[in-house]
Every structure is written in C-alpha cells, then in structure tokens.
C-alpha cells in the first residue's frame, strides 16, 4: 500500500501543468531572493532595537528581555498571536469527528478508557513522564520572567504530555463541554480583560504601569499557557481521531 501512495505521489497529476510549475518556481525564487536581499540590506534597525529593549528593561516588570518585548513592549503582537491560535482551534474543533466513537458522552475533559490494554512499561513510564512534563511546563512559565522560557514553550511542553497520554491510548479527551471551550479561549479572554482593566487605571490599553507590569504579565502568561496547551493538544487529538475512526467501532 505504501508503494501505491508513492506512485500516486510521483505521478504528474498534481493539478498543475509544467508551465505553471515553472512560473511558480520563478515566483518563489524571486520572493526568496528579495527576502534575502532585504535582510542583507537592512542591517541597521536590529542592534538599535535590542539596546532600546535592554535600556527599558527595568520598566517592563520582568528581567528577561525576550519576555519584556513579547508581553510588554510589543504585547499587541502577542495578543493577536493568541487570537490567531484561537481561530485555528475553532477551525479544527471537532463537531462530528467524535460522534459515534463514544457511545455515552463523557462529561469530563479527560476520561480513562479501561478497555484499551497498555504495555505495563509504557504505563509506568507515563506515570513519571506526564507529571514531570507538567512540572517542566510550570517551571518554564515561571522562569520566563527571569531567563529563557515563557508561555509558548510551557504550553508546548504541557501539550506534549497530553500527546503522550493520547498516543498510549488509555485516555480519551472530550472537547464538546463548555468548560473546555472556555479553557481554549481563556488566554485571549484574560488578555483582553487585563487590557481593559489597564485602560481603566492608566488610560492606555497595553502600556502597563511599572508597579503592576510584572503581575499583569504573569496573569496573562498563566492564562495563555493553559490555552496554548489546550489548543495544541486539540490539534493533535482531533487529527488522530480522524486518522483512526474505526478503532472503537470495530470492537462493538
């Protein structure tokens, strides 16, 4: 069957003629060359911006310049990034891909599937690995204020723990409940609420007062980590559910 996949891919039925492929190649090469030239030509701004960030670090509320830029100086970008992630989550949110798989609808986000037998070595490994990954995620989130780390990295590590659980097959995730959907949108909601409160205090939307900046950034990062982890896990679990729709159905 793999040979068949291979031959189908090597065939010329990609929907594009040779001329179209050639033109596409020319366009992509030109764009790439333009980007490379742009990077070579414009080498002035970067060092000035870096020194500017370092100079204003003591007003940002955190000690890590990357976190300061991401969540204070350029927090508008991060707000929009989290919004984009939420849109992705809405786009892939399962509506019917779980329908028919579980006979009784599970109310909890994480439910144990006892029927599926798991290698005891794998089960033992997961017992250590999943709490460890959660701990590392929390550490990355906390250390993000002082050293490399932050919400995205922490969210990805926590989502990795969920991916390991999902691959072992003994746990099922449910995405239909309202609480899960609140979890998915928590990052954006908290970000907007903090921005609104900030607007009431200072009159500007995303310019935090120096004394509260650290607290605001921590609140936003905790909420963003939870949402990012949930969204990344949703991407994986939903794709996996589509990939193996007949696993439960066959046994019944």
């Amino acid at each position, binding site marked *: *069957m*793999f040979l*068949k*996949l*291979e031959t189908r*891919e*090597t065939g010329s039925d990609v929907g594009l003629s040779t001329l179209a492929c050639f033109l596409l190649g020319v366009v992509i090469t030109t764009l790439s060359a333009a980007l490379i030239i742009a990077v070579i030509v414009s080498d002035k701004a970067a060092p000035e911006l870096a020194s500017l960030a370092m100079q204003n670090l003591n007003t940002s509320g955190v000690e*890590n310049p*990357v976190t300061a830029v991401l969540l204070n100086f350029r927090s508008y970008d991060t707000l929009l990034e989290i919004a984009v992630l939420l849109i992705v989550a809405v786009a892939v949110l399962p509506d019917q891909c779980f329908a028919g798989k579980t006979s009784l609808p599970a109310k909890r986000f994480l439910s144990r599937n006892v029927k599926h037998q798991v290698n005891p070595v794998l089960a033992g490994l997961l017992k250590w690995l999943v709490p460890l990954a959660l701990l590392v995620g929390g550490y*990355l989130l906390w250390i993000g204020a002082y*050293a*490399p*780390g*932050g919400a*995205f*990295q922490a969210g*990805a*590590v926590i*989502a*990795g723990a969920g*991916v390991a659980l999902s691959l072992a097959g003994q746990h099922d995730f449910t995405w239909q409940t309202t609480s899960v959907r609140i979890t998915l949108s928590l990052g954006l909601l908290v970000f907007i609420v903090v921005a609104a409160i900030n607007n009431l205090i200072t009159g500007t939307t995303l310019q935090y007062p120096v004394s509260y900046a650290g607290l605001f950034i921590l609140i936003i990062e905790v909420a963003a980590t939870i949402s990012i982890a949930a969204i*990344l896990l949703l*991407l*994986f679990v939903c*794709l*996996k559910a*589509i*990939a*193996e729709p*007949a696993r439960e159905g*066959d046994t019944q």
Partner: protein
Amino acid sequence: MWAEIVIDVVLAGGVITLAALSLVVRQVFTAIVLYISLGLMVTIIWTRLNAWDVAIAEAAIGAGLTGALLLVAWRRLHEKEDVNDVSEAGNSGNRV
C-alpha cells in the same frame, strides 16, 4: 576556535542537506523524519547563536509537536490507502 568553526560548518551543511533531502525524498515517512531531524538541528543552531528562547520553542513546537502532527497526518493518508486496498479486494468491513 577551530573546533567551533568545524561545529558551525557541520551544522550549516547539515541543516541545508536535511532541508534539501526532506524536500527531494519520495517517501512521505522519510520526509517527515528528515523534517523532524531538521528541526532538532535548527534547535542546536539557535543555541549556538545564544538564542535560548527560540531554541526551546523550536525544540518543543518545531521538532516535537509539528513532528507529531505530521506523523498523525501521515497515518491518516496510510489508513485511507488501507481502506482502498480492502474495498478493492472485496472484503470490506473485515479490517482490524
């Protein structure tokens, strides 16, 4: 000094080789594995550039989660082929 240059040359050559191979290679699975290797090598390059934030993000998202997503998508392609094989053989519904 020389050791650093050698490491950098190996990393730069390796990342270009892996990128080219993952595009050129015919088998989807091989391409995915090469792409994950590319992500790990890019992670090492970020650490060489002292960009630890980007290195952590690349390792966790670029190499880890993207790799997992690609592998699951590959499995979905695989399953579709499997279903086609079974239905062509005429014994549909007997798949484990």
